[in-house]
């Protein structure tokens, strides 16, 4: 039917979105946001034994402008929350957030007035990673799950429509701060 059948063998076709997703996921640069013990495991993941360099992300950027993945590793205190939001705002689009460990994901065992009950109260989180702290394999697993999301991410007008749809869903959903029970 289409152009595929007229091509000689050995030529691969793809969509622009597919190629862009492939490039994006293969060269993610994480911003360091190590706040507690999870940061030790995050550093180990970047080291020679677990080596996230195998997935094109060995270099941890200390400056948010050069990073596109923020790994929030550790408990976020209320005093740290505005700093975290500013670092997130300074990152260039497209950007992703990975909440590493239970403290970053939901506050974990620190259910008190000083600790933010999950970084999704201040920034949109793309991947939650349980564990206290998660072992480096768990972090790599979470990063790979995020990679599949990045691979299928949309571009241009599709992306605009997707953002609009997500915005509507987020407006309809109950705010995290009002949730009760285990979801809080």
């Amino acid at each position, binding site marked *: 039917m289409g152009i595929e059948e007229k091509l000689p063998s050995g030529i691969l076709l793809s969509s622009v979105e597919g190629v862009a997703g492939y490039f994006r996921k293969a060269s993610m640069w994480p911003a360091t946001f190590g706040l507690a013990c999870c940061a030790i495991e995050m550093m180990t993941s970047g080291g020679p034994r677990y080596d996230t360099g195998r997935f094109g992300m060995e270099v941890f950027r200390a400056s948010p402008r050069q990073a596109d993945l923020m790994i929030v590793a550790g408990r976020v205190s209320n005093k740290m929350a505005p700093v975290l939001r500013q670092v997130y705002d300074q990152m260039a689009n497209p950007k992703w957030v990975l909440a590493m460990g239970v403290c970053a994901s939901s506050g974990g*065992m620190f259910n008190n007035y000083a600790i933010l009950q999950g970084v999704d109260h201040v920034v949109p989180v793309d991947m*939650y990673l349980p564990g206290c702290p998660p072992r*480096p394999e768990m972090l*790599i697993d979470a990063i790979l799950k995020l990679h599949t999301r990045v691979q299928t991410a949309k571009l241009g007008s599709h992306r605009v429509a997707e953002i609009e749809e997500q915005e509507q869903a987020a407006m309809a959903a109950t705010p995290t701060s009002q949730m009760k029970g285990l979801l809080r």
Partner: protein
Amino acid sequence: MASLKEQMWDPVAGFGVTFRTMFKKVVTEQYPFDKKPTAPRFHGRHQLNRWPDGLEKCIGCELCAWACPADAIYVQGASNTEDERFSPGERYGSVYQINYLRCILCGLCIEACPTRALTMTNEYELADDNREDLIYEKNDLLAPLLPGMSQPPHPMLLGEEERDYYDGTAARRATAQAVDNLKEERT
């Protein structure tokens, strides 16, 4: 002017570390392609165990929820009836939820469990992209049905009363049944 040693020997000595490393075994683990097993007693995802006939071991006592330092476990017990029996004895856990975004995998719940219903597996790939899916319900946590087990609710198959389950009679009967089945298969 630098000495002859500084000019000639020191660069070689510095690169000596690099040179020696070339002959060492690579330490990198090829994680997603070649998964190394964890330590046998690694604290991973929980599991709710079953008796050999398929009845649940959980009795809904909430001791795990009380032991949990992170308030990650929610248990709601209910009474077994003669028509609808999920566990030997009076009570069973009708709602069992573990929030893996709170759970720190410390294992205090396992220590608290009086019937050894709650144990931990070595599974650790838990990451997900929303909070709801990381609250594991009872059907996510229950152990799979092994051969010889049947899905509750059903009456106690390995004893007349709950005492038989807790004093080991049920386990002996289950073993005897399994041995008999094997013998039948082989003859």
